[in-house]
């Protein structure tokens, strides 16, 4: 039998790359632009601002315009300079938490989804973790090990892991039943290659989306911890501890709390908008239902 069959022209795959496809989405586009500006300011801003921790007793609690762009706090520190320095902390926390939560969560999710015995163990631990409120868990862990940037990040990562594990596991459980995975097993592909070649690529799109949400919520958690005094130590300004320190003078000098609050809200919002846009383009099933 040597009948040649013409290749079908039925399905024309989109000529756009994933990046082009994603950036066409309005949410992703505008969210990314705002985020870009925030990142730019956080990286380069501090070089052109005052020292965020230098005290100036002569100009305390000055309103915006009188001293500095955003005014000064009760110790005479420049609020503008503190806010843009705090941005570094927030972004670093958001990004590292997202990366580490995704890495640990993916590894555990793959193992749980593919190996029956591990599934029971890993998922019960995850259920246990999810039963404890994230903030309480983080406070407990920080109080055990002392507050540094690293411990704060670790304390936020751990409660985020179960969300990723559940997501990855559910993808693995559906994909492992796919005939192409069974075909790979039946042509003798070792388990680790089956995972890397055939299962893992299916998790990437939902993971990117989940990572943006984790990034946003990590920034919030960090600010809450800072506000509660359980976060980054006060000598490093973060949006959370700036607000915490400004709380006492809130009614007299609202700007101390207002500017870091706005910065936090805008950052988290733009991250979440990007996340929504990514979900719409990368996970068409949900997108179709939302339309």
């Amino acid at each position, binding site marked *: 039998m040597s009948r*040649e069959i013409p290749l079908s022209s039925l399905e024309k795959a989109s000529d756009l790359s994933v990046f082009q496809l994603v950036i066409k989405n309005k949410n992703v586009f505008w969210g990314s632009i705002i985020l870009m500006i925030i990142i730019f300011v956080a990286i380069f801003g501090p070089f052109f601002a005052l020292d965020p921790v230098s005290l100036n007793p002569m100009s305390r609690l000055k309103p915006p315009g009188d001293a500095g762009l955003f005014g000064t706090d009760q110790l005479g520190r420049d609020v503008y300079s503190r806010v843009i320095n705090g941005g570094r902390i927030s972004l670093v926390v958001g990004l590292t938490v997202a990366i580490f939560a995704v890495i640990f969560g993916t590894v555990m999710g793959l193992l749980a989804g593919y190996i029956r015995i591990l599934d029971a163990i890993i998922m019960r631990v995850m259920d246990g973790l999810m039963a404890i409120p994230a903030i309480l868990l983080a406070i407990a862990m920080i109080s055990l090990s002392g507050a540094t940037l690293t411990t704060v990040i670790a304390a936020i990562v751990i409660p985020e892991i179960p969300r990723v594990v559940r997501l990855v596991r559910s993808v693995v459980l559906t994909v492992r039943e796919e005939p192409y995975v069974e075909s790979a097993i039946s042509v*003798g*592909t070792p388990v680790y290659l089956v995972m890397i070649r055939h299962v893992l690529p299916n998790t990437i799109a939902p993971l990117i989306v989940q990572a943006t949400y984790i990034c946003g919520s990590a920034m919030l958690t960090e600010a809450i911890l800072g506000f509660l005094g359980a976060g980054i130590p006060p000598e490093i300004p973060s949006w959370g501890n700036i607000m915490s320190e400004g709380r006492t003078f809130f009614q007299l000098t609202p700007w101390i709390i207002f500017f870091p609050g706005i910065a936090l809200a805008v950052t988290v919002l733009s991250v979440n908008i990007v996340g929504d846009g990514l979900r719409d383009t990368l996970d068409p099933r949900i997108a179709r239902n939302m339309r």
Partner: protein
Amino acid sequence: MRNILEIEKLTVSLPKNADRLYAIEDINLTVNRNEIVCVVGESGSGKSVTAFTVMGLNDKRALKMTSGHIILEGEDITNASPAVFRARRGEKMAMIFQEPMTALNPVLKVGDQISEMLEIHTLMTTSERKSRVIEAMSNVDLPNPEKMYKSYPHQLSGGQRQRIMIAMALVMEPGLLIADEPTTALDVTTQANILRLIKEIQRRRGMGVLFITHDFGVVADIADRVVVMQEGKIVEQGTVTQVLKSPSNEYTKMLIESVPSMKPPKRKEVSGASALITKQVNKTFGGLGFFGEGRKVHAAKSVSFDIKAGETTGIVGESGSGKSTVARCVIRLIEPNSGNILINNLDIANLTESKLRPLRNNFQIVFQDPYRSLNPRRTVGQSIIEGPTNFGVPLAEATQRAKDLMNIVGLQTDSLERFPHQFSGGQRQRICIARALAMEPQILIADEAVSALDVSVQAQVLELLDDVKRKFDLAMLFITHDLRVAAQVCDNIVVMREGEIVERGSTYEIYSKPKHSYTKALLDAAPGHNFFSG
């Protein structure tokens, strides 16, 4: 007025970047009172679009009606408002769908779902509605309708669910019933019953039925008139005997010739040693619940058979008969609970995965669904050479082998660079066969490998399977629910029901002198078995 439905010059356009301009083009057809019109065609022929357009159920954003008229019982509903369509649906026209599980709401009692139709369209009281529903349910021969009124869809079998759908469609006694592949998802014996029911109700009520199907066997059983569609156009229409006995159009002829015959061809007996022997294979599922014993299903009970090199053994049976379980045990995707599976006199039934892996090149499988059997993210070439490279074949040699196989399965060698979505279903099935052959197996298992394909493509893939079997002297285990296909490709047949083998023998014996009553029932239920027996 005899016509219930008149479709005049109907054209529906497709979205801009589709493969053709129109989903259906210039369709003219009528359905008279008291007749069944079958619309038949392969996938993508526009037969379902026609039905959905009549019902006003198309996605208006994607499919736009550009010209033509739809006249239902003398009323032009072409540009009717959604409210008019809502009123006509149920009262004057009703539809039943392919998949009765998803067409019914899983969280409502079936009786209430039928009753909803009356609630919307009539002013009956609750008790009047209930007695009417029960009457409608007994009209479709449902046993014990009072009790079944309170059942949920998942508590019913596929055939019962389809009967509920029919009862729901007919409770308002519409003049037109549109049936979109209503028996495709059902087992053959159930299908035969549903077809009989539709025909009987149609005759009793004098309805017009627009019946959509891809299966010429079903057409032969049920149709008064036949409309053949190809790529959105009607290529032939006429009475059932006209079209089936003396088709005038080339495409119709080709379709009818592609329907495999129920009469098995003469085959030489294959001699030699057995390549695959299964002895008393048992497999149960479930049984292990978190709280006490779960439900246990005995999917395979003491299944024994053997296949010689160059021989094809078919396992036939309906859904739930355990035929796929047996295939998955043989390929060791699952482990049997007991029994032996001997390949080259080596028992693989209980080997661990690491001991099994070096042996996996000996037995390969081709799955049913060509759309899901290839990893969409990997090129065809990567998929095909994955297996050989696992067994240490150098990349260059594996690639060469893949190229040779592309020629054997009738695809161009540059297909290797492409991704699966660029191929049609039949082409993908060829790729799957090439992937299996790349392992140079002795045993090839085809698990419903042609069931998802259109008849014309099915014939080509069957030809290819037969070809490679001879070329590579394969022992083939052919699993199918389709008795026509089995008749054409199998040397021996094993009939399974509820996990047990009820009858076995040479294909000729089974088809000419079936012994077991179940085999007889299966053969009788095959659609159009009188028409396509030659």
